């Protein structure tokens, strides 16, 4: 789960990482009120779960309450890479003399958290890694050993930070960020830029924060930060129904059982010349209610022209899925063509059940490839 800048900063603050004071606003009027409370020169920042908001006009300076209201008016409603801005974060503008970068990522490959620190902040870290790799200090932490102060020293010296006042503050921030990363079950915590003000104060000016979905059960406060309104309407409905669904941009609705087979089904539809409308994993079940829920989500997408059920019965029994499909059709009155491919446990029985009921919009195909081809034809 990705957090907004202001949410990440809220977590930073809890762990003692310095951030600027700010307020959230959903309307220009709220922005004015926030600006009045905060006072002084301000910055109005679009809250979106995507990068590149600066270039898209999503970050603007304001010199007072009137101006903050006007800038919020400009920014709210902007479309940034397909993300509509519905909230802005208003904080005191910071004077910046240096921009650094600090992050911890969950390094799957090394099976260790990875620290990265560089004085070349404010730009994309990939660019630093490519153009000036020596400027980037990297350090893996052994999770059984945990954070040790020497690691922070290695990073700070390694990045070439030589001002003692900065060193002292950044050593502290490096340690606090590790606690924040581990205790929030984060997959990514990034501060870019980590700024030094002309007075020598070090502060997190932005945040990028991703939390492990599987760990949200022990972080109810973070789980509550999820912005259900921001999701695509189909994905929102899927979350409500407990359906594993990812929206794509085509016309063939897809329903498989198991993540790997469902991904493979999406690929095979492309191989057959079609455009998948979604990824949807029915999971281990296949009972009527599961099928109804998944179909409700898939058919709520108006681009869908045909639906492809690709089921390989293992523990899931194909006769159950067949009954589920018929019950769902009965309940939902779907007129779109539905192509079904059943294989594995009780597949013959499942096909027999479908053949006997024979709804006019149901097509049963013997193999995954033939079914994909048929679903693509029917979507054309």
């Amino acid at each position, binding site marked *: 789960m990705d957090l907004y800048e202001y949410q990440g900063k809220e977590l930073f603050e809890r762990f003692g990482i310095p951030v600027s004071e700010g307020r959230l606003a959903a309307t220009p009027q709220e922005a004015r009120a926030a600006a009045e409370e905060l006072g002084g020169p301000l910055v109005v920042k679009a809250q979106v779960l995507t990068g590149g908001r600066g270039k898209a006009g999503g970050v603007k300076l304001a010199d007072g309450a009137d101006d903050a209201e006007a800038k919020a008016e400009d920014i709210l409603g902007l479309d940034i890479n397909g993300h509509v801005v519905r909230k802005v974060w208003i904080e005191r503008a910071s004077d910046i003399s240096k921009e650094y970068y600090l992050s911890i990522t*969950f390094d*799957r*490959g090394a*099976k*260790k*958290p990875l620290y990265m620190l560089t004085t070349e902040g404010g730009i994309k870290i*990939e660019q630093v890694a490519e153009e000036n790799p020596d400027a980037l200090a990297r350090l893996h932490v*052994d*999770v*059984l050993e945990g954070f040790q102060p020497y690691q922070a020293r290695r990073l700070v010296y390694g990045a070439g930070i030589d001002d003692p006042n900065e060193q002292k503050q950044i050593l502290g921030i490096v340690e606090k960020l590790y606690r924040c990363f*581990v205790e929030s*079950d984060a*997959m990514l915590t990034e501060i870019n830029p980590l700024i030094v003000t002309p007075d020598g104060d070090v502060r997190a000016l932005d945040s990028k924060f991703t939390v*492990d*979905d*599987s*760990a949200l*059960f*022990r972080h109810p406060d973070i789980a509550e930060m999820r912005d259900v309104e921001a999701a695509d309407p189909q994905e929102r409905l899927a979350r409500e129904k407990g359906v*594993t669904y*990812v929206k*794509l941009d085509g016309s063939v609705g897809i329903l*498989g*059982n*198991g*993540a*790997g*087979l*469902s*991904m*493979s089904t*999406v*690929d*095979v*539809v*492309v*191989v057959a010349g079609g455009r*998948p409308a979604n*990824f949807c*994993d029915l999971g281990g079940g296949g009972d009527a209610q599961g099928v109804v829920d998944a179909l409700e989500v898939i058919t709520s997408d108006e681009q869908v022209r045909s639906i492809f059920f690709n089921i*390989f*019965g*293992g*523990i899931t029994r194909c006769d159950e899925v067949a009954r589920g499909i018929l019950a769902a059709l009965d309940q939902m009155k779907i007129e779109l063509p539905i192509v079904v491919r059943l*294989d*594995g*446990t009780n597949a013959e029985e499942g096909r027999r059940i479908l053949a006997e009921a024979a709804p006019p919009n149901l097509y049963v195909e013997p*193999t*995954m*490839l033939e079914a994909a081809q048929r679903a693509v034809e029917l979507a054309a």
Partner: protein
Amino acid sequence: MAVIVDNDTRLVVQGLTGSEGRFHGLRNRNYGTNVVAGVTPGKGGQDVEGIPVFNTVAESVTAASANTSLIFVPARFATDAIYEAVDAGIGTVICITEHIPAHDMLRVYTYIRGKGATMIGPNCPGVLSPGKANVGIIPAEIFSEGGIGLVSRSGTLTYQIGHELTQLGLGNSTIVGIGGDPVVGSSFIDPLERFEADPETEVIVLVGEIGGDEEEKAARYVQEHVTKPVLAYIAGFSAPPGKTMGHAGAIISGSAGTAQAKKEALEAVGIEVGTTPTEVARLVSDRFRIHS
């Protein structure tokens, strides 16, 4: 032979008295797996259709000589169950449980590596050596005995490929489902090493998917250490970046972990990659007949 599970497997099921544990534990026994014990704290002394239940894994090792554990306990208790098994001296731990927090798995992974135990999973379907032992939830009836070693991050996709192989008259030495999480106990390399050493395995099929870099690591390992023919399939060519595709580990982060990059890494070391499960099965069949 075969790898990881076989006729020497003496299985303890952690969570045997729960509904999943009971259903699959008994299915595994019916298949012929030697299920010697179950563990459920507080239910020691009971039995599940004749399988004795103990309070601790340590007791199942002492009293029933268990050497392999199958874990069905819920996610928030699963890491405790893994540590308990390893500390009791269990050499092979197979964990089916889904949704274990990634940070917990980092610690488990680091700990058990130090202990020299083998772990498969979590979020995996288990391991099946046809004709010998089935440990987990793989529907064994789809597979037959033979010379193909199959290692995969996915469950149902593996069944699909196994089914296509069976229809072409080909069987498997062992099917290893390594799991779909970002951190798993064993990735491709451990099973590849075992398949290379296993006299019964003649051809190896690797089934990967988007996310992480384990397929790329496997490609390098194959180039340096594997003499047997290896073929591959990768799922997720059409997956958009930044979206978790069902498995917690199946996510393209930035530009890392794409199916195309994995395909290229595998092909660069001479591993053929099929476009569909059907094509993979056909490629395996061609290669198998040449090899045999």
